[in-house]
C-alpha cells in the first residue's frame, strides 16, 4: 500500500496497472513527484481547521498543506459523507483523533504518511456486506453493436473514472447493489442503469453530431472529436444522391482541398484527383503530359492495384480528350478509369487523409494524401433484402454552337482574300470545301455527334444480416451507360460485393473476409480524336449513303481524312475484371493487446480488342485489316501484420500500434497486333492474321516498411500522437533503398477546460490541433539507376540478329524525395454541436524532388531520372461548416459548406535561369504558372495579334524564351484555382427530402481561343470554329480581339502570330464557375400504404448531376477548360426507386 497522493484518487485494483503506466508515462509521473516534493518541503506546523460539510479529500488536503503529512487511503473503501471540523493550533494527533472519532476508520502514522483504512469488520458485518455488494459485468456498444472502448462508468459514491476496455467490456467487484451507474461516452447520450451482476450489452445512443461519427483513418478508426490530423469523410448517403458510375466524380466539391477534374464526359472516362496542390515539378517538359500528383487509393486496407492510372493501352474514342489541337492540360492519367469497375453503392465511406499526421503512417505511398475507401459490411439483426433501380438520361452540359455553312464559307473566302491567294491556287486538293463540296449543304456535325441524349440504367440488390458473432453482406449490381454519340456504344458493369465477419472464442478471434469482383465492358470506337466532331466543315458531303455505307469520295475529292463515321466502325472493346479481396484475422492476446494481420490481393485485368476492318478504311489507301489485342494485368499483394495496444489509465487512454507492411505491385502487359486479315470477320482472333507482332512489358515494385504509432488522450482533453516509419523501396539503387519518416501531432480540446465551460457555454466543443511530419516519395519507374537495352520487336531481324536499342539514360544516385507538412486546425462546435466549424491552415514543402529531368535530344534521350534541389510549397486554408439549422419532428434543414484556398509556390530552384525549366517555372510563383507573351491586342492595321516584347515594344513576332535567354516571355497566368469548394442544403419534410449541392471554383484557365488558334490550324483554315470566334478583324482600322483569318497555307505571318497567341496571356481567361452538381428529391412512401406486400422503406427519387452552371467562361465547359474539343461533360437526370424486404 504505497500509493496515493491526495490529489488523484485511483481505484485500488489498478495499482499494478499504474506501475506499468508509470513506466510508459514517465514524464507525467515525474511531474507528479515534483509536485509532491514541493509539498513535502514545507515542514511541520500546528493545525487549524474550519471546515463545514467538507469532503474528506478537502480536509486531508488542508491538513497536508499545514503539516506536510501525506494521507494514503483507498478512496473506494473510504466512501464517507461530508464532515465538519473546527480546531485551532492542534497537533496532528489531536486533529486526527477528533476527525476520525465517529468514523468507521482506523489510522496510523508512518513517518510522514498518514495511512487511513476502514476499520476491520466483524465476520458478521462481512457476511452482511457480502450480500450487499455485487460484482458487475457489462458490455458497452454503439447502435451498430460496435464496442465502445474507453466509455466511462461512474456512480455517486465513486471518484475518478472507470472505463471500458478495448472490447467495450467492464467488470467491477464489490459494488453496492443499490448503486446506479452512469455510463457515458463522448458523443453519446449518457445512460443511467441500476446495477446487477450481468448488465449484458448496454447500447448508447449517438448524439446527433458529425463530431462523433466514426471515421476510418490509417489502420484504425477515430472521430473528428479526437483527431489531430486532417481527414474528411464522404458518406454513402452523399454518394447515393449522385447519379454517377465513377465514384470519384461523387467527390467533386465535397472535400476541401480535394480537386476532381473529370476527363471528358464519355462513359468510363477517368478523373484526375489531387489533394492540396501539386508537389512535384513537371517531369518531362517536352511531353504533352503534365505531371499530376495523385493520392494513394486504398480499398478496405488494400491498395487498389491500378491506382488511378489509365487502364487502356489503345487509343479510344472519348478516353483521350487531348486532341492534337490542344493538349496542354493532358496528363498521364487520361484514359479509361479503373474506378469505373467499382459500384458506388457498395461504398460505406470515403475518407480523404490530407496532412502528415493522417498520412505519414503510409510513408512514401501516402505523401500526396490518401483516399481510404471502405465498403459496406453486414450488420447483426434480421436478414434484409434491399433492392434499388434507377434509369436516367444524359446530354451535353454546355453545348457549343459552331458556324453554319454560310458563316463558314464567308470565313473561308475572307481568309483567301486576306492571304492574297489567287484563283488558280484555289485547287480541289487544298480547298475541296470551296471547289468540290455543295456550297449550300449544311450539317450541324456537333449536333450530329453530341446533340443526342443517352440513357443510363443502374440497379443493385443487397442481402445482409447476421447474428452477434457472424454478419454478412452480399450485393449484386448492374449498371449500363450509353455513349451520347452515334453508334451502339456503352459501358456496362456487373459487380458483386461480399463481406463476412465472424468472431469466436468469446470474441478473442475476429475474422473478416471481403471480396469485390466486377466485370466492366466498355465498347466504343477506336479513334482517339473527338475534335473531328467539332471541326468538320459544315458543308462536308454526307458521310453515309442511303443504305448506310461509308462515303469515301465525293466528286473525285477524297473524304478519307474527314470520314468520322469510319471511326465508328473501328470497334474498340475494353473489358476489365477487378478483384479486390481482403482477409483480416485478429486475435486478442490479452486485454488491450491485439494482434492482427491484413492480407490483401487486388488484381485488375484488362482485355482490349481494337479492330480496324477494311470496310472502315479508305480505298484511297492500302487497306489492311488489322486487329490489336492488348492484355494488361495490375496486381497488388499486401501483407500488413500489426500489434495494437490499448490501455485505459485513469483519465488517459493510450493506444500504440506497431506494424509492418509488405507490398508487391506487378504490372504486365502484352500487345499483339495482327496485320493483313483475309476477312474482316476474322478480326476477333489473332489466328486470322498474316503477320503478328508482339510487344510486352512488365514492371515489378516491392515495398516494405515497419511503422509505429503512439496515441495518448488524457482526460478527453489532451491528445498526443506520434508516428514513425522506416520505408524500403525497390525503386532505388542499392544502398539508397531505405528512408526514415515520421510525424507528431497534438490536440487540445479546450472546451473541456473548466474556465471555458463556465464562461462560454454555447460553445460545446473547441479543439486546437497541430501536426508536423515528413514523408518520402519513390513514385518512379524501377531500374532507372542502371542503363538497359531492349530488343526491338517492331522490326524484322537484321540479318538474323534481333536488334537492341538502349532505353534510358541512367543515374545511380537518385534517392527519396521528401515532403514536410505542417497542419494547424481549429474545430468549434456551437449550440450542442449542431453547428460544427473547422478551420485548417497547412503548409507543405517538397524538396529533393525526384523527377525525370528534361534533357535536350542531343543527349540521346528526353530526360533522366534525378533528384533536384527545387522546393515546392503548398500553403493553404480550408474551412468547413456543417449545421443542423432546424430539427423538428416533421421538418429538418441541414447545411454544409466548405472552401479551400491553396497557394502553390516554387520556393527554390538552383540554376533555374540557365535550365530548360526557365520557360515553365519562376521562383516565387505557382508551379502552374504559364510563362508566355503578354498579349496586347490585334493591330488595327495589319490585323495580326500583337504582344509586348521584354523591353515594352509591341510586336507580332515575339522572341521565344524568357528575358534571361533573350526572349520576350514572362509569367502571364496562374492556372491554380484561387479557391474551390462546395455547399449543400438538405431539407426534410415528413417523407420528402430535397438536397441541392453546389460546387464552385475560382480559377483562370485556357480559353476556347487557345484551342482554335494552334500551330496545326487556325480560323480561316479548313476547320469549323465556334460562332463566338466570328468577331475577328476584317478591315484596316477594325478594333478586335481576334486576328485576321488565314488559311495558313501560303503565308505564315498570321499563323506565326496565332502560334505566339496560344502562348500568350490572351489564351487564358477566367474559368470560374458555380455548378449545381447534385439535385436530389426523395420521397419515402409510408409503410402503411405498402400493405401486406412485405415491402418496407419504399423510396422514390430523382437525382440530377451537373444540372445548372453559372459561369462567365465563353465557349465550352469550364470544368474541362482548355480541352475544348473533347468529349463534353454530361448532364444526367435519373429517377429510381428502392425498397427492402
Amino acid at each position, binding site marked *: 500500500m504505497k500509493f496515493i497522493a491526495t490529489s488523484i484518487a485511483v481505484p485500488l*485494483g489498478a495499482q*499494478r496497472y499504474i506501475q506499468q503506466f508509470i513506466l510508459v508515462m514517465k514524464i507525467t509521473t515525474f511531474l507528479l513527484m515534483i509536485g509532491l516534493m514541493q509539498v513535502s518541503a514545507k515542514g511541520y506546523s500546528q493545525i487549524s481547521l474550519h471546515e463545514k460539510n467538507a469532503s474528506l479529500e478537502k480536509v486531508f488536503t488542508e491538513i497536508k498543506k499545514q503539516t506536510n503529512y501525506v494521507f494514503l487511503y483507498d478512496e473506494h473503501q473510504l466512501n464517507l459523507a461530508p464532515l465538519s471540523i473546527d480546531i485551532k493550533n492542534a497537533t496532528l494527533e489531536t486533529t486526527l483523533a477528533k476527525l476520525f472519532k465517529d468514523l468507521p476508520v482506523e489510522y496510523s502514522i508512518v513517518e510522514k504518511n498518514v495511512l487511513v483504512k476502514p476499520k476491520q469488520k466483524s465476520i458478521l458485518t462481512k457476511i452482511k456486506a457480502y450480500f450487499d455488494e455485487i460484482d458487475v459485468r457489462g458490455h458497452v456498444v454503439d447502435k451498430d453493436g460496435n464496442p465502445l472502448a474507453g466509455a466511462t462508468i461512474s456512480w455517486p459514491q465513486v471518484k475518478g473514472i*472507470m472505463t471500458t476496455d478495448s472490447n467495450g467490456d*467492464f467488470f467491477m*467487484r464489490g459494488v453496492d447493489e443499490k448503486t446506479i451507474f452512469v455510463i457515458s461516452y463522448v458523443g453519446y447520450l449518457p445512460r443511467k442503469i441500476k446495477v446487477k451482476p450481468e448488465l449484458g450489452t448496454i447500447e448508447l445512443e449517438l448524439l446527433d453530431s458529425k463530431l462523433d461519427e466514426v471515421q476510418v483513418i490509417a489502420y484504425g478508426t477515430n472521430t473528428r472529436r479526437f483527431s489531430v490530423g486532417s481527414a474528411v469523410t464522404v458518406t454513402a448517403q452523399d454518394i447515393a444522391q449522385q447519379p454517377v458510375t465513377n465514384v470519384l466524380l461523387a467527390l467533386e466539391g465535397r472535400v476541401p482541398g480535394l480537386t476532381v477534374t473529370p476527363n471528358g464526359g464519355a462513359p468510363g472516362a477517368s478523373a484526375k484527383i489531387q489533394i492540396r496542390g501539386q508537389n512535384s515539378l513537371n517531369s518531362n517538359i*517536352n511531353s504533352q503530359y503534365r505531371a499530376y500528383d495523385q493520392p494513394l487509393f486504398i480499398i478496405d486496407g488494400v491498395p487498389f492495384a491500378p491506382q488511378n492510372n489509365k487502364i487502356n493501352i489503345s487509343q479510344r474514342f472519348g478516353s483521350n480528350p487531348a486532341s492534337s489541337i490542344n493538349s496542354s492540360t493532358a496528363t498521364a492519367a487520361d484514359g479509361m478509369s479503373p474506378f469505373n469497375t467499382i459500384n458506388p453503392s457498395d461504398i460505406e465511406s470515403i475518407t480523404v487523409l490530407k496532412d502528415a499526421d493522417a498520412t505519414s503512417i503510409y510513408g512514401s505511398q501516402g505523401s500526396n494524401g490518401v483516399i481510404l475507401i471502405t465498403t459496406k459490411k453486414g450488420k447483426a439483426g434480421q436478414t434484409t433484402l434491399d433492392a434499388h433501380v434507377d434509369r436516367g438520361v444524359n446530354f451535353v452540359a454546355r453545348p457549343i454552337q459552331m458556324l453554319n455553312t454560310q458563316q463558314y464559307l464567308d470565313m473561308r473566302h475572307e481568309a483567301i482574300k486576306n492571304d492574297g491567294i489567287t484563283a488558280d491556287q484555289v485547287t480541289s*486538293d487544298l480547298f475541296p470545301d470551296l471547289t468540290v463540296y455543295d456550297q449550300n449543304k449544311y450539317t450541324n456535325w456537333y449536333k450530329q455527334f453530341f446533340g443526342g441524349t443517352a440513357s443510363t440504367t443502374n440497379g443493385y440488390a443487397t442481402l445482409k444480416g447476421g447474428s452477434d458473432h457472424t454478419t454478412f453482406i452480399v450485393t449484386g449490381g448492374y449498371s449500363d451507360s450509353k455513349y451520347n454519340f452515334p453508334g451502339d456504344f456503352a459501358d456496362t458493369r456487373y459487380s458483386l460485393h461480399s463481406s463476412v465477419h465472424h468472431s469466436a472464442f468469446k470474441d478473442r478471434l475476429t475474422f473478416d473476409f471481403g471480396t469485390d469482383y466486377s466485370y466492366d465492358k466498355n465498347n466504343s470506337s477506336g479513334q482517339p480524336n473527338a475534335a473531328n466532331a467539332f471541326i468538320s466543315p459544315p458543308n462536308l458531303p454526307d458521310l453515309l449513303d442511303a443504305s448506310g455505307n461509308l462515303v469515301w469520295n465525293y466528286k*473525285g*475529292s477524297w473524304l478519307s*481524312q474527314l470520314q468520322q463515321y469510319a471511326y465508328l466502325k473501328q470497334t474498340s472493346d475494353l473489358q476489365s475484371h477487378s478483384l479486390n479481396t481482403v482477409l483480416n484475422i485478429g486475435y486478442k492476446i*490479452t486485454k488491450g*493487446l491485439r494482434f492482427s494481420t491484413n492480407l490483401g490481393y487486388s488484381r485488375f485485368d484488362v482485355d482490349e480488342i481494337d479492330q480496324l476492318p477494311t470496310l472502315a478504311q479508305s480505298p*484511297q*489507301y*492500302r487497306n489492311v485489316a488489322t486487329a490489336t489485342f492488348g492484355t494488361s494485368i495490375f496486381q497488388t499483394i499486401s501483407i500488413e501484420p500489426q500489434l495494437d495496444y490499448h490501455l485505459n489509465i485513469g483519465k488517459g487512454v493510450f493506444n500504440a500500434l*506497431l506494424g*509492418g507492411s509488405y507490398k508487391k505491385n506487378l504490372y504486365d502487359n502484352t500487345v499483339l497486333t495482327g496485320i493483313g486479315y483475309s476477312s474482316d470477320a476474322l478480326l476477333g482472333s489473332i489466328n486470322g492474321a498474316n*503477320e503478328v*507482332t508482339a510487344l*510486352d*512489358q512488365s*514492371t*515489378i515494385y*516491392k515495398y*516494405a*516498411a*515497419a511503422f509505429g504509432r503512439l496515441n495518448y488522450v488524457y482526460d478527453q482533453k489532451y491528445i498526443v500522437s506520434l508516428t514513425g516509419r*522506416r520505408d524500403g523501396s525497390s525503386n532505388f539503387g542499392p544502398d539508397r533503398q531505405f528512408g526514415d519518416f515520421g510525424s507528431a501531432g497534438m490536440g487540445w480540446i479546450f472546451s473541456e477546460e473548466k474556465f471555458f465551460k463556465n464562461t462560454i457555454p454555447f460553445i460545446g466543443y473547441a479543439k486546437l490541433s497541430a501536426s508536423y511530419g515528413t514523408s518520402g516519395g519513390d513514385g518512379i519507374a*524501377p*531500374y532507372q539507376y*542502371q542503363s538497359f*537495352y531492349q530488343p*526491338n520487336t517492331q*522490326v*524484322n531481324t*537484321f*540479318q538474323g*540478329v*534481333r*536488334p*537492341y*536499342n*538502349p532505353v534510358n539514360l541512367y543515374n545511380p544516385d537518385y534517392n527519396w524525395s521528401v515532403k514536410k507538412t505542417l497542419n494547424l486546425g481549429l474545430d468549434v462546435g456551437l449550440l450542442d454541436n449542431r453547428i460544427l466549424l473547422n478551420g485548417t491552415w497547412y503548409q507543405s514543402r517538397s524538396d529533393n524532388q525526384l523527377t525525370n529531368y528534361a*534533357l*535536350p*535530344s542531343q543527349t*540521346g*534521350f528526353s530526360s533522366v531520372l534525378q533528384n533536384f534541389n527545387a522546393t515546392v510549397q503548398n500553403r493553404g486554408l480550408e474551412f468547413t461548416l456543417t449545421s443542423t439549422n432546424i430539427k423538428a419532428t416533421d421538418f429538418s434543414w441541414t447545411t454544409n459548406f466548405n472552401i479551400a484556398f491553396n497557394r502553390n509556390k516554387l520556393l527554390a530552384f538552383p540554376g533555374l535561369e540557365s*535550365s*530548360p525549366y526557365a520557360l515553365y517555372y519562376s521562383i516565387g510563383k505557382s508551379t502552374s504558372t504559364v510563362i508566355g507573351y503578354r498579349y496586347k491586342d490585334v493591330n488595327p492595321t495589319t490585323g495580326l495579334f500583337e504582344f509586348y516584347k521584354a523591353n515594352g515594344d509591341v510586336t507580332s*513576332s515575339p522572341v*521565344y*524564351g524568357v528575358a534571361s*535567354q533573350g526572349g520576350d516571355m514572362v509569367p502571364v497566368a496562374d492556372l491554380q484555382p484561387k479557391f474551390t469548394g462546395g455547399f449543400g442544403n438538405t431539407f426534410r419534410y415528413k417523407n420528402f427530402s430535397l438536397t441541392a449541392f453546389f460546387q464552385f471554383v475560382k480559377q483562370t484557365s485556357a480559353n476556347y481561343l487557345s484551342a482554335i488558334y494552334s*500551330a496545326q*490550324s487556325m480560323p480561316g483554315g479548313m476547320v469549323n470554329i465556334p460562332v463566338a470566334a466570328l468577331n475577328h478583324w476584317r478591315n484596316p482600322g477594325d478594333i478586335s480581339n481576334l486576328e485576321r483569318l488565314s488559311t*495558313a497555307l*501560303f*503565308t*505564315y505571318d498570321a499563323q506565326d502570330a496565332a502560334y505566339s497567341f496560344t502562348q500568350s496571356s490572351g489564351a487564358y481567361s477566367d474559368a470560374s464557375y458555380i455548378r449545381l452538381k447534385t439535385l436530389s428529391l426523395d420521397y419515402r412512401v409510408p409503410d402503411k400504404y405498402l400493405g401486406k406486400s412485405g415491402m418496407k422503406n419504399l423510396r422514390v427519387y430523382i437525382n440530377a448531376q451537373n444540372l445548372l452552371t453559372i459561369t462567365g467562361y465563353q465557349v465550352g465547359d469550364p470544368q474541362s477548360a482548355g480541352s475544348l474539343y473533347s468529349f463534353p461533360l454530361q448532364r444526367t437526370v435519373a429517377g429510381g426507386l428502392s425498397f427492402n424486404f
Partner: protein
Amino acid sequence: MKNLQYLTNTKVVAALVLLCIMASSCKKLIEIPASPPSQLSSAQVFADSTNIIGAIAGIYTNFGVTTGGGLITNSMLYTGLSGDEVTTGAYDVGDVQFMNNSLISSNTYISKMWSDAYSNIYQVNACIAGITSATAISAALKKQLIGEIKVVRALYYFRLVNLYGGVPLVLSTDYTATAKIPRATVDNVYLQITTDLTDAVKALSVNYPSAGRARPNIYVAKALLANVYLYRGDWQNAETLTTEVINSGVYSLESDLNNVFLDGSNEAIWQLPANGQYSQTADGQFFVPYSDGVASSYPISAFLKSAFEPGDQRLQKWIGTSLVDENGDGNLTASYYPYKYKNRDAAVTPAEDYMMIRLGEVYLIRAEARARLSKLAEATADENTVRTRAGLSVSTAASSTEVLASIMHERQTELFCEGASRWFDLKRWATIDVVLGAEKPNWKSSFALFPIPVDQIRLNPFLTQNPGYN
C-alpha cells in the same frame, strides 16, 4: 477492478520478435530481379559477343525509322518537298510547310528528325564506349566494329550539318556533359566527320563484315569520305578516293535500271535491309500509291519531270505513273511519282534494300571532282558512264562551265530523291536562291537551312536559332 490485466509477457515478446525479424529482413523483402524481363543491362550487353552484334544491329535498324521521323529517310522526303523534287496534295500542314517554304521552328517533323539523329548517335557513342572496354571480343573485332559504326556517326553528322548548319557535336553518352553542348561550327562538324571516316578507312577491310553489303567495308568509308571531300571542295582527295572505289573491281553498274535498288544489286556499295514488318523501304511507303487509280501522296514536281531529257530510261523506269480520275467525271489524268523503290509491302519480291551509297553516285562524284580539276575529258567520261546506262547519248558539253553544268544536271536526274542530295547540291553549288527563287513563290535564302527545333532550344538554352526563324 479486474478489467485491467497484466500483459502476458511471452506473447508480447513473441509478437515483438516477429516484427523485428520483419524489419531486419526488409532488404530481402524488397529484392527484385537484376533486370526487367524484357531488357538487358548495359553490362550484360557488352559482356557477350552475340549481344554486342544485337546492339550494332540496332544502330542499322534505326536508319529505317519512318513513322518516328527518322533522319535518314525523312530528310530525303522533306528536302524533296522544300526543294524542287516532290509536292504533296495531302492536307498535312506539317508537309505543306516544307512544300510552301513556310516552315516554322515548331514543325514536328523538324523536331523528330533531330531527335532521331541524336538518338542513334547516342547508340553509336554508347557502343563505341562499350566495345572499347569489352573483354568478350577480340581486339581485331573491336577495331572493325568501332570502325563501321564511326561510318554511321559520320553519315548522321553529314546529314545534320547540311540540314541545320552547325550542330552540337556529341561524342559521349555522359548527359551531364552533353546536355549543354552548344552548336559547333560547320567546319568543326566536318572535321569530326572526316576524322571518323578516316578512322574507319584505317579500321575496315575489303570484306564486308556480314552477308551482303549491309555493314560498311572500307569502300563504304572511302566513298562517303570522297563525298565529304566533294562537299568541302577537296577535289583531289575526292578523285583519289573515288578512283580507289571504282578500280576495286568489286562494283559495277547494273545495266537494267530496274535492278539498281534491289537486294543484291552489284552497284550497291552500302545497302541496308529494309526490315519493316508491314512495309519495305520508307521510300516505297512514301511514294508508291496504295492502289491503282490513286495518286501518290508525294508526286514529283513539274520541274523534276521536265528535267529529264527525251529518251531518258530513268523517266520510264524510275518515275511511276498513275492514272487518276481527279474530278470524278471519268476523265483520267496522269500523276507521276518517284519509282526507284517499287515495293510497298514487306512481302513483295524481289526485295529492295535501302541504298546508302552506290557506284553510280561515285562516278558522278569523280566526274565533278575531275571537272573542277579541269580534267574535262575524264570528267565527261565518268558522266557518260552514267548517261549511257540511262539510255542517253554521250554528253556534248565542251567548255569547263558546260561540263560542270552537265554533271550538275546529271546529278539531278540520276540522284533524285536519294539521300537529300539535290537539296544539298543546290546549297553547296550556291545556286539554291537562283533555282528555287525561280520555282518557289515564297522562297527566301534563309530557308536553305532548316530551323533548329524550338523544343530543343527550350531544353538547351545554349542552342541558337538559324536566321529567319523564331
